[in-house]
């Protein structure tokens, strides 16, 4: 009886522990929607997804219609100061999932890249577009926006929009070709070409917005991965013939230098340098001194000790040392030649003889 009750208790204890484990696991793996954090995501728009046109250029000539980003507007007006105003932009985004208001700062950032080709400027000036500041820059067709950061070097302007992002649909098309246009953009080109044709226009648009949807972030990541894969594929498919630049390699022989003989010939180069140094003349050193920006010349020993008053002493010392060296070397040479002539050597000899 006691044994049976123990068994039941054991089963209940096991059930309790298992339930506890399951509940813990469930609470860990459960998705908590309240933890969604807004992140910024970027969309780059080119071609038909971003369009533009100027309604007034110079003397009031309209451009004539929307033009795709990347396509320049051909002009031949010859004015020193040709200005373009009433620039309108519109763009197409296929989806802005989870678009939300920014936790701080602006809701949406739009960067517009301008392009030009064929503009000529006076000597000393780079061909570029100029941005003319005026009082109406913030009037973006009734949409609250701020324009800042016109960068002449890159020909970009940055527009910040403060929209009610929550009212926009989170999926699907967002007002195809949504027009947040303005009638206050003005581009001034300091052009001095003589009726030579040139082009001007918008190159591309980049939109950055806030989203609570991870899909957009994942899509951006996937796009980056795809770009990396394409780069690798392009590299692998590159069939440009290899071209080794062997002109700068030092030659150790009479033939043109190659990669392997340059490496394997390093000992030969070392021995050649040593022999040249032994038989050649010395050049003094110039050691740059810190803080004073001057060089300290260090003359060779030849000019200090081995010539002039010290020459006889150096000759006596050097001659004695040379005599000792020569004596021992000649003994070694005699032995070597003697063994070679007497056929006493074996294959293990370092220098190798008959």
């Amino acid at each position, binding site marked *: 009886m006691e044994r049976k009750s123990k068994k039941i208790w054991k089963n209940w204890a096991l059930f309790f522990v298992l339930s506890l484990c399951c509940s813990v696991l469930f609470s860990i793996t459960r998705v908590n929607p309240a933890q969604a954090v807004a992140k910024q995501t970027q969309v780059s728009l080119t071609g038909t997804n971003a369009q533009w046109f100027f309604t007034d250029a110079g003397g009031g000539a309209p451009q004539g219609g929307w033009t795709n980003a990347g396509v320049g507007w051909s002009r031949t007006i010859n004015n020193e100061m040709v200005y373009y105003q009433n620039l309108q932009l519109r763009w197409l985004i296929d989806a802005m999932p989870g678009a939300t208001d920014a936790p701080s700062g602006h809701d949406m950032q739009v960067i517009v890249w301008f392009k030009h080709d064929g503009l000529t400027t006076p000597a000393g000036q780079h061909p570029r577009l100029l941005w003319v500041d005026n009082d109406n820059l913030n009037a973006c067709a009734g949409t609250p926006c701020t324009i800042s950061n016109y960068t002449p070097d890159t020909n970009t302007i940055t527009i910040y929009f403060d929209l009610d992002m929550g009212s926009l649909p989170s999926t699907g098309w967002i007002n195809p070709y949504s027009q947040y246009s303005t009638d206050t953009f003005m581009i001034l080109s300091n052009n001095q070409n003589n009726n030579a044709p040139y082009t001007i226009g918008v190159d591309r648009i980049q939109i950055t917005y806030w989203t609570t949807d991870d899909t957009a972030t994942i899509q951006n990541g996937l796009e980056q991965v795809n770009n990396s894969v394409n780069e690798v594929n392009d590299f692998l498919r590159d069939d440009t013939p290899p071209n*080794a630049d062997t002109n700068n390699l030092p030659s150790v022989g009479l033939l043109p230098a190659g990669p392997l003989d340059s490496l394997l010939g390093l000992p030969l*180069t070392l021995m050649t340098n040593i022999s040249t140094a032994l038989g050649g003349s010395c050049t003094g050193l110039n050691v740059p001194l810190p803080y004073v920006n001057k060089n300290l010349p260090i003359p060779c020993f030849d000019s200090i000790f081995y010539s002039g008053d010290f020459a006889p002493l150096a000759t006596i010392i050097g001659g004695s040392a040379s005599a000792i060296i020569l004596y021992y070397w000649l003994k070694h040479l005699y032995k070597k030649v003697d063994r070679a002539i007497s056929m006493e050597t074996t294959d293990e000899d370092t220098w190798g003889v008959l």
Partner: protein
Amino acid sequence: MIGQLLSGLFNLIMTLAGTILQIILLPLNALFNGVFPDLTTWINNVVSGFNSILSGLPYAISIIPPIIRSTILIILTTELALMLILRSTKLTAKLWKIIQKIKIW
């Protein structure tokens, strides 16, 4: 004068040895140029670094008195010439033995 003469002789022997090395490595060089076209840049860096290390060598050697320098040069040149003569004689003897074994007549 005698130093420069010996140095020139030494360099001539080295150049001949380098040329023999180049002739042996001709096909391998072509293979490396085809398979690793960018390798030569790195080899060039290594060789340039090696040469820059050796740039102070003439000054260091100039510390040795001129008579001893000439003596060392004589020893080096003679040893190198001996080594080449003995080695080439040994190789020629081996080659001759191989040729003797070939009996095509």
